[in-house]
């Protein structure tokens, strides 16, 4: 993470249109790494090369390294912004094609979603490679519905003569889809608004879940799901875990064998050393 911070332009904190989301979006205060308290945690995900770090920088005012090579965001970077009297902590996760871990990067991203349980997850997708990018979006929607899809690189899509119907996509995915071009600063305001609406429950997501349509799979799920729920009653995503087990996902199998799966405290502490761990200790 870059230690470099940037002083945000001072904005008047009170005004008569302070309740209007459009107005509030223009009152973005980039907090860099200067965060000592936050109201909501926002995770930033996406395939490699979707401009994820550019989005991160646009929101936090940080200058995290932006470059085109694999594994640039080695673990995760954190920063913050303030909007509408609300502090948001933004966690930039490594670029990944999948949540089904076959690499360290995917495990970091997946563990954060599963055990860190961010309030909002922003999935940055490449508008010019939408179909490929939607694989990850659908996987994320299996875990959480509190998602905003940032349809990035719209400028490039336009150059290629591509049009994307974001409104229809919003309807089909059941979560807000925001067309944007982070490097040109387009759509940042709309993205902030969508994050704010999902975080505060003003947008109620209806996440598109794949219908597996296989009675054998559903039968298998009915058999193992209650056992998982009984063994790990606090697991927020038991169905997802059950599907991964049926998939033969070795990291999940290992987590169950070692008994670490239900140990949310421990997993959360691993995924989020400085955040949830503190909250959990305070609650207990």
């Amino acid at each position, binding site marked *: 993470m870059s230690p470099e911070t940037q002083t945000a332009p001072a904005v008047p904190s009170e005004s008569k249109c302070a309740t209007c989301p459009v107005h509030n979006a223009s009152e973005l205060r980039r907090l860099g790494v200067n965060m000592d308290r936050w109201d909501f945690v926002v995770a930033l995900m996406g395939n490699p090369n979707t401009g994820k770090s550019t989005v991160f920088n646009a929101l936090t005012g940080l200058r995290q390294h932006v470059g085109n090579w694999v594994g640039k965001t080695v673990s995760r970077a954190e920063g913050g912004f303030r909007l509408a009297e609300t502090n948001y902590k933004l966690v930039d996760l490594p670029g990944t094609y*999948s949540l089904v871990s*076959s690499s360290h990067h995917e495990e970091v991203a997946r563990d954060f979603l599963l055990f860190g349980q961010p309030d909002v997850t922003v999935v940055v997708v490449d508008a*010019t*490679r939408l*179909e490929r990018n939607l694989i990850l979006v659908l996987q994320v929607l299996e875990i959480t519905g509190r998602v905003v899809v940032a349809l990035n690189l719209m400028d490039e899509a336009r150059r290629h003569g591509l049009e994307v119907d974001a409104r229809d996509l919003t309807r089909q995915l059941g979560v807000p889809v925001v067309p944007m071009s982070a490097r040109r600063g387009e759509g940042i305001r709309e993205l902030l608004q969508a994050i704010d609406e999902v975080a505060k429950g003003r947008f109620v997501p209806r996440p598109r879940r794949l219908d597996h349509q296989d009675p054998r799979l559903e039968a298998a799920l009915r058999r193992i799901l209650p056992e998982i729920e009984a063994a790990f009653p606090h697991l927020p995503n038991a169905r997802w875990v059950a599907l991964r087990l049926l998939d*033969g996902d*070795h990291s999940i199998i290992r987590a169950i064998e070692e008994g670490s799966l239900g140990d949310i405290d421990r997993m959360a502490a691993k995924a989020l050393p400085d955040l949830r761990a503190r909250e959990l200790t305070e609650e207990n």
Partner: protein
Amino acid sequence: MTTLDRLSPGQRATITSLAAQGAERRRLMDLGFIPGVEIEVEMGNPLGDPRAFRLLGGVVALRREQAREIGIQVQPEETPTHVA
């Protein structure tokens, strides 16, 4: 019906099946090797292996053993139609 390792440059095909199992299958699907998806050879290789394939607007390189795991239906060559 054949497998992806036999796809020639210039041909287009549709993926019909995946023989791989477990993590390997999962990985291939994450990269877009899903039944119904169209695929073509992006780049050959003088050594024959690996080769790059274009699918879902991106390019993915596979070794021959991996390509052999992917069932495809080659699409009929597009013959130019002449209008009198």
